[in-house]
């Protein structure tokens, strides 16, 4: 076999494994990224959206944040203007988490209608810029 052909085989092998790793990676770790209203719509037609790992991007409803430092529990509501969900999170939220900030909540919506979060990402206006005071 010529070196060029052998190399082409090696290249196909590498490209193939990259493709395979990516496809399987997306299949195994991909998560829906939904807004609260999209989630409400999906869950009303498809029960499998309960207890499914996903990310929900929304805004924290001002005045709904309850922190219990002793048990490290954080409760708040998120909304996109139409639909709204309560969230409960055990752990330490990032410094940038505040009332009325945009958040990405990672977790599962349970049958009790509450999103049990395993992670909360606060999107501050920017890493470089001050959060405008509401």
């Amino acid at each position, binding site marked *: 076999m010529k070196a*060029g052909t052998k*190399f082409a085989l090696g290249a196909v092998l590498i490209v193939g494994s990259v493709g395979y790793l990516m496809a399987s*990676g997306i299949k195994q770790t991909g998560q829906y990224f939904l807004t609260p209203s999209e989630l409400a719509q999906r869950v009303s037609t498809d029960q499998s959206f309960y207890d499914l790992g996903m990310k929900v991007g929304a805004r924290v409803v001002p005045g709904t944040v309850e922190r219990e430092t002793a048990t490290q529990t954080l409760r708040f509501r998120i909304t996109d203007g139409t639909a709204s969900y309560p969230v409960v999170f055990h752990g*330490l939220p990032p410094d940038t988490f505040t009332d009325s900030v945009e958040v990405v909540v990672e977790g599962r919506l349970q049958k009790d209608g509450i999103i049990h979060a395993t992670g909360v990402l606060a999107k501050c206006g920017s890493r470089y810029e001050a959060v405008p005071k509401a």
Partner: protein
Amino acid sequence: MILLGNLALWLAFLIGLWGGITGFVGGAQGRPDLQQSARHASFALFGALLVAVISLELAIFRHDFSLEYVAAYTSRNLPTFYLWSALYAGQKGSLLFWATVLSLFACLAQVMTGRRHRMYLPYVAAVTCLVATFFISVMVFAANPFERLNFVPLDGRGMNPQLQNPGMVFHPPMLYLGYISITIPFAFAIAALLSKKLDAEWLVAVRKWTLVSWLFLSIGLLIGMWWAYVELGWGGYWAWDPVENAALLPWLVMTAFLHSVMIQEKRGMLKKWNLALIIGAWLLSIFGTFITRSGVIASVHSFTQSNVGYFFLAFLVLAAVSSFTLYATRLPLLEAEARLESMVSREASFLFNNLLLIGIAFSVLWGTLFPILSEAIRGTKITVGPPFFNQVNVPLGLSLLALTGIGPLIAWRRASVPNLRRQFAVPATTAVFVVLIFLVAGMRDFGALMALTIGGFVFATVIQEFARGARARHRQYGEPTALAVVQLLARNRRRYGGYIVHVAMAMLFIAFAGMSFKTETEATLKPGESATLRSADGHVYTFTHLGISQYNALNRQVTAALVEVHRDGKAVGRLRTEKRQHVDALGRPTFEPSTEVGIQSGLRVDLYVVLAGLVNGTEQAVFRFTINPLVWWVWFGGFVLVIGGLIVLWPGGGAVAIKGVPAARTQAGYTVKLEPAGR
């Protein structure tokens, strides 16, 4: 001052346009007067932008809050140190900083390019001027740093506390320097395409520039990791965030280029590939800027959403289409001078290295863009996070690391079996020993075992290379071993500096693997109470909460907790972690409280303590304790990487002309025999 700044910006815009036009026309028609004019435009552009920068810095230092930018990012009580960095703390200022640095690089390219490569310079001036003009036009038309407020606030809003960290003073400029300087190799690539002088000459002209931006980008990434680690408090240094990925992408592509360029220099192969890599690296840097500034992809890092994104998208598309069209018309001129002769050759290992690097870059790009792609194709947004990137990149990265060790052992063109046996004996044996030692020690994590084994292989390869080189010098010149090693480095910086970078990469991979053994616990403690945590290497750490102190500092109210640490019952030190509430000059709180992490760094583990908060204002505090293995080696590996890069970059010396071999080819660094240096 503000008027002056505005004028300077407009002037820079016009000069940039002029430089672009004269450079292209002068180059195409061979008119020396226009070429000279383009060259002068590069210098004038830098001058005008420098005036704008000075105007903005003066406004910042004078606390001129009538300027929207100054009011938005600084305050009267901001430490002087951070007044400097306020220049690039916000979108508008960072655009100005960007354009200015680009114009500085453009001047350096004009001045430092040798006589031999003069014919490229008019085009280089044109490309750099036009790219700078784009950045200036974004400022002038969409995000002017000299925009006035219609009232003058008493005090500014102040700088985000997370930016008030020494790392943040150096991280953005370093990253920018890397990002921006890619424009120079890109400009040379376009110049080579336009002038149809596509032999190895243009590579010689751009190789060092590529190395410069690679080095700056490496430093920028490393400082960014360090900043995330010490400032953000989540306990890690890399989160596969879109903005981090955006900075990694050009780095990966440039790494590929720095390797494949050797094949072109030595064998005249891969010409199309190399040009595509440079153009791709530059487009990725613009793409990264677009992601950072447009907010199209949800990221913790992004600047506020603004229409600036459209400017970048339009520019990105325009630049991609025009450069690849030009590239396509020149393809016939880029035929390879040689063919691949054997799979077991240095060339083949470089080709696989390139494929892996590009594969990694592609998967990172794909994962970053996946939310957008999936929404466009399937109508639902699907995101992938760190598990995806780790799952894909751990195997690819480890294969790449393996090639790092294998490549230098294989001869150019075609390796013979006895040669292979001689070269691989020591490194392979070392690798087997390493895997046995860690298996016996009880390690069962596959990824970590592989990282250690392959890392050991790479170390052994590099040591063998140094030892053989030094022995040859010893035999030939009778130099003592230490001197021989130094001479080896000095005489062939490119080759041996490259090996040092390889060692650094092995250290980094092993350090990354260490993070899979991190342990963590959260605890609510009253003063005197303690929490225990077992580290991966089997020690038991006890963290005792000593108490809380509260006091005011220059621009913040501090709540500090002191924690005493015992390892297996023996005191090893005290850690301090803080919550800081930043205030403005009138004592009103600004921003949300920020966390200062307490870190004790060691060769084996880092102790990482975060104060999460106080329970109802009492001294009872909530902590998170993390033990991060091998983090110190990330910073040390990074340091070694930079040293290696600097050795490669250091001017002079490296190119040793050998009789009958053109200098450009010997520069590729792989002269098999160590000949006396042409003296």
